[in-house]
């Protein structure tokens, strides 16, 4: 086998050529667009070329060898493993929604930026090098080996497998959902067809080559993600600051943005718009108070309205249609009316609020409200960080480096490559906000920019952007603009005045982000099932050939299940992605870290820790999350359900420590194993 060094240079050469090829591809599309190729075709080309590329890498790296399939032969150089892990990490949510969250939530949105980078300190310091030294295939592998004892070692393994699957499955459904969203938004093809197209590329890749194919595809995907994220922001930065380094230059826009925020806050026209929303909210409030009478009256009114319109000989067909549509949309029962109207009231109250300042930490109407915001920010940061350090699909990647030292270096490269994107996110949010506050707000309705029309029509049910002249002054007020956070990234090329093929590039970037994460997650799930359940529990004598075949079959089944779940468009599962971090933190983190750093931790302790952390976390979510029938009134210290890990982690740790101390210490073999993983 060739030496590590020449392998590294060979890879560098390949990916350098790949990057050059990709730039050429962009140039060709630029020329084609100039020559008048229609938008839809550019979208198709980006989709099919990139998907074919990923599938092609999968075909080239196909393998049935066990170490190659599970851990890419353990010879992925630190830099490339870092790049692959970064692509694994940067999910559809990061790529598309992170900047939007920052735009809409101001300072609060930074919790995600901090949480999703700081977690890598924990990965580097507490977990990755030790896992690499241990050198098996999965996370349950490590826990089972570290916690043998009275009960069969498989008990810990099965618990870890269950946790791994719950965490990874919710996450992968959200990624596949993201694939459907991106393909349908950019090419106009149906949501479910988009899902299965994306799925095809995921499957060709991971099915044929397992970890090996996924690793090399993820590196290629990272390069596309980087291009797609940076080019529009660099352009926007050059437009507003004449410095094409957005990460630094956006600082000069901040004071101007603050001035614009202040000007808008004092604008009497804005107050007019806000008053309109407040009046609507009050109206709903009144109706809610008079239920069920108000519901009956409203229904009779709507029926009367139709009859009136029909009687009126001047009424057009459109009027009649809209009147009957109003009646069909009218709540069917008083209960439904209560739910719908409460939502409408909350929506209007939210729209009536003046927009939040971008940079002020924890704005609140009084000290207590601000403190609650701060505590939630810290709790969320904590859960995201600890959760990061326990996500199986990320940790698994550190098995693939050639040595312990390379594993440490690889965490550095991971954080470095993640940071290239994350450090740009605030710049993007602020530059777009500045653009909207200064050129869209205050413009006239007859001169709205093209991107507003384009994106307002792309999704009719939940429009990404809607602007209505509420106070009929034909000037756009900030309060009249309703933006979906996702638009910030998707429309940046057009806001910056770039040609359409850059929008196609952004779509390809979003797709790469979703696919790379989905790849890693699917492999994690199918490995947990095939390696940990089938090979280690059901049939330990299975041949290597059989193990890999089983793994591939399971991958197929899990992928189809996930695609099916995503095609149902489950709103609740999407909100559970954040929750996956809390769950990972509460169940796996204590057992992993105490297993390495505390020799006294034993099997009963680990079992108690995993179960107690899980139960605590789930209990808190069920009682406080409205989607699971919980109620915000049950919150402890006003901590939001997404941060359930704040309670789950300490409970898990306490259970692990107390039960370990009450039961006999681990045997000598285990102690020897701990000493072994502690020495590189």
């Amino acid at each position: 086998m060739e030496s590590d060094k020449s392998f590294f240079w060979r890879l560098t050469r390949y990916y350098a050529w790949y990057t050059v090829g990709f730039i050429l591809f962009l140039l060709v599309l630029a020329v084609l667009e100039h020559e008048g190729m229609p938008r839809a075709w550019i979208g198709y080309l980006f989709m099919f070329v990139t998907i074919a590329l990923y599938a092609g890498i999968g075909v080239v790296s196909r393998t049935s060898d066990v170490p190659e399939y599970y851990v890419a032969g353990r010879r992925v150089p630190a830099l490339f493993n870092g790049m692959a892990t970064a692509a694994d990490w940067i999910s559809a949510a990061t790529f598309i929604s992170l900047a939007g969250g920052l735009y809409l939530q101001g300072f609060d949105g930074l919790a995600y930026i901090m949480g999703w980078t700081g977690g890598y300190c924990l990965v580097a310091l507490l977990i990755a090098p030790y896992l690499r030294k241990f050198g098996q295939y999965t996370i349950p592998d490590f826990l089972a080996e570290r916690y043998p004892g009275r009960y069969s070692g498989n008990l810990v393994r099965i618990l870890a497998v269950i946790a791994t699957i719950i965490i990874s499955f919710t996450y992968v459904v959200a990624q596949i959902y993201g694939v459907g969203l991106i393909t349908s938004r950019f090419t106009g093809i149906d949501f479910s067809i988009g899902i299965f197209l994306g799925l095809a590329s995921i499957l060709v890749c991971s099915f044929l080559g397992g970890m090996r194919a996924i690793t090399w595809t993820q590196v290629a995907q990272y390069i596309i993600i980087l291009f797609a994220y940076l080019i529009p922001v660099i352009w926007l930065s050059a437009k507003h600051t004449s410095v094409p380094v957005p990460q630094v230059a956006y600082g000069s826009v901040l004071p101007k943005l603050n001035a614009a925020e202040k000007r808008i806050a004092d604008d009497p026209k804005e107050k007019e718009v806000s008053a309109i929303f407040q009046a609507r909210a009050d109206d709903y409030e009144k109706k809610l108070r008079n239920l069920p009478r108000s519901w009956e009256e409203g229904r009779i009114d709507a029926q009367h309205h139709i009859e009136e319109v029909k009687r009126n000989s001047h009424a057009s067909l459109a009027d009649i249609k809209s009147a009957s549509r109003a009646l069909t949309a009218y709540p069917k029962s008083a209960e439904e009316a209560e739910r719908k109207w409460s939502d409408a009231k909350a929506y209007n109250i939210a729209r009536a609020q003046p927009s939040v300042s971008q940079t002020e930490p924890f704005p609140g109407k009084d000290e207590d409200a601000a403190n609650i915001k701060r505590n939630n920010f810290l709790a969320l940061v904590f859960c995201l960080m600890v959760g990061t350090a326990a996500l199986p699909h990320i940790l698994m990647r550190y098995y693939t480096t050639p040595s312990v030292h390379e594993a440490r270096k690889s965490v550095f490269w991971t954080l470095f490559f993640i940071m290239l994107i994350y450090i740009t996110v605030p710049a993007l949010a602020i530059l777009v906000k500045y653009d909207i506050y200064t050129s869209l707000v205050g413009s006239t309705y007859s001169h709205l920019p093209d991107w507003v029309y384009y994106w307002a029509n792309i999704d009719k049910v939940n429009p990404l952007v809607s602007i209505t002249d509420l106070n009929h002054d034909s000037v756009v007020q900030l309060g009249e603009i309703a933006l979906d956070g996702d638009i910030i990234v998707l429309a940046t090329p057009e806001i910056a005045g770039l040609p359409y093929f850059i929008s196609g590039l952004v779509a390809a970037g979003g797709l790469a982000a979703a696919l790379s994460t989905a790849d890693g997650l699917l492999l994690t799930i199918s490995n947990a099932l095939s390696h940990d359940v089938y090979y280690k529990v059901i049939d330990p004598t299975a041949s290597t050939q059989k193990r890999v075949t089983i793994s591939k079959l399971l991958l197929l089944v899990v992928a189809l299940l996930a695609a099916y779940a995503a095609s149902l468009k489950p709103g609740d599962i999407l909100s559970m992605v954040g929750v996956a971090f809390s769950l990972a933190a509460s169940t796996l983190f204590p057992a992993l870290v105490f297993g390495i750093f505390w020799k006294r931790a034993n099997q009963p302790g680990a079992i108690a820790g995993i179960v107690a952390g899980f139960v605590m976390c789930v209990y808190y979510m069920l009682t406080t999350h409205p989607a699971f029938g919980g109620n915000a009134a049950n919150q402890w210290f006003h901590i939001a359900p997404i941060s359930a890990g704040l309670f789950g982690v300490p409970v898990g740790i306490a259970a692990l420590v107390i039960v370990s101390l009450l039961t006999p210490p681990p045997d000598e073999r285990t102690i020897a194993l701990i000493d072994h993983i502690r020495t590189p």
Partner: protein
Amino acid sequence: MENKTASNFWDNTRRLTMALLALWFVVTFVAVFFARELDRVNLFGWPLSFYMAAQGIMLVYLAIVVVYTIRMGRAERQLQQTGEHTHGE
């Protein structure tokens, strides 16, 4: 002999880990806890707390990982050298 160097190595590792974790904790939780107080400070036009949460703390995280990787790499080489002296591996 080997056990002693190995346990030395582990003690050093643990000390380094604790120190860097303490730094991680302070920049993350203590700095954000006082974000409102830090907001009045300006750093080259950026409000300090916004800059720290948006970019600055991230750079500290990267520095933490860099320091850990370099120090551990050095300690590891030393351990291997002493190992070679005593065992002639």
